[in-house]
């Protein structure tokens, strides 16, 4: 499936409903595009800085003011040209790396022709969660918002539907300190929300395994499980991850899925054994 470059350019968004195998190729293409745009922006920024710098020297000499004007115009044109390469896509190429890593994980357990619904946003909409005064601080304000930039849903070959979303959660606190200076502090965390709708005829009911699953999930430093809900049909798990690289976020996602599946696999063995026991002529 070809990447809609125009949409990526204008909205900073990649959305697809395609076979899992095609996802990796798309993400590879986007990552290459992001790298090329990043390099182009850097070249133009350097050109603009040089033009403005030499322009200032020309003005300083007094006699070369005409050349200075031309160089300032050239610098402005370089800056204008940078708009052709969206900053959000160019500077967030690591989101492609994360998407590729997750697509590879899904591809290992999905049929090649299985469809996956995939969304990767480089320019995510801010959704305000709360906004109000910050107690104990002069002119204190606190704002919480989130940006949902990733989601995937895919059917695995065991009949499980795997879905995951990533939201970046921001907390911004602003206040005036004792010396009268205005301060703003922003903190970010990523929320990984994973859901596995498993076929109970294969895995049985996982509800009694909840505590064992909680113990089983291992996460890298800086990440922790915040909620785990197990029902007879689905496992829902939520983890918080400190800001890190795309690699560390991908690792946290993989480890979360592995922890859940370790218990799903155990339950499958138990269910298979139970079925063998209840079959006529099976072990008594």
């Amino acid at each position, binding site marked *: 499936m070809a990447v809609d470059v125009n949409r990526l350019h204008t909205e900073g968004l990649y959305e697809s409903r395609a076979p899992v195998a095609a996802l990796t190729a798309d993400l590879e293409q986007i990552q290459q595009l992001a790298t090329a745009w990043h390099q182009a922006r850097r070249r133009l920024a350097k050109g603009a800085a040089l033009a403005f710098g030499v322009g200032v020297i020309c003005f300083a000499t007094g006699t070369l003011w005409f050349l200075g004007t031309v160089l300032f115009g050239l610098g402005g044109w370089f800056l204008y040209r940078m708009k052709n390469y969206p900053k959000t896509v160019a500077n967030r190429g690591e989101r492609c790396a994360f998407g590729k890593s997750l697509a590879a*994980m899904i591809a*290992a*357990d999905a049929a090649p022709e299985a469809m996956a619904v995939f969304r990767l946003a480089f320019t995510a909409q801010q959704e305000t969660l709360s906004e109000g005064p910050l107690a104990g601080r002069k002119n204190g304000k606190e704002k919480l918002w989130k940006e949902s930039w990733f989601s995937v849903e895919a059917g*695995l*070959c*065991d009949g499980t539907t795997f879905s995951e979303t990533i939201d970046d959660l921001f907390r911004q606190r602003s206040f005036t300190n004792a010396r009268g200076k205005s301060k703003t502090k922003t903190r970010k965390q990523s929320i990984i929300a994973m859901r596995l709708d498993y076929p109970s005829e294969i895995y049985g009911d996982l509800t*009694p*395994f909840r505590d*064992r699953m909680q113990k089983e999930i*291992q996460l*890298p430093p800086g990440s922790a499980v915040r909620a785990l809900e197990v029902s007879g049909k689905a496992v829902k798990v939520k983890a918080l991850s400190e800001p890190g690289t795309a690699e560390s976020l991908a*690792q946290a996602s*993989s*480890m979360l*899925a*592995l*922890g859940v*599946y*370790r218990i*799903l*696999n*155990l339950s*499958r*063995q*138990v269910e298979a*054994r*139970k079925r063998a*026991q209840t079959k006529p002529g099976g*072990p*008594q």
Partner: protein
Amino acid sequence: MNPPFPPDWKCPRRVGFLFPHACLRATPLGCPDCQNGQIEDPYAMRSDRFGYSRFDYYTDDYFLDLGSVYDPGVPDTAPIDFSEADGTDLVTPGNEFETDMTES
């Protein structure tokens, strides 16, 4: 099995990252999982599962958690909980390690 493979041959090896499933490739040549047939059990031998080094292995306490549902080590009819009779069976006559106080 060595090449050439019959036309209807399907690879019987276990593959997968999260759970095991049949490979079903028509040939192991160029296979990234078994590496041209060199790895017998690609699912168990994966080394990219981060902290889960023995992903496919469960100690007995995993099964003990399940109560009387399943115990891999004993016949299916045996109760999972130890009884008083089981305790008696565990005592080996002549073994006085626990009561011999001459050693520290």
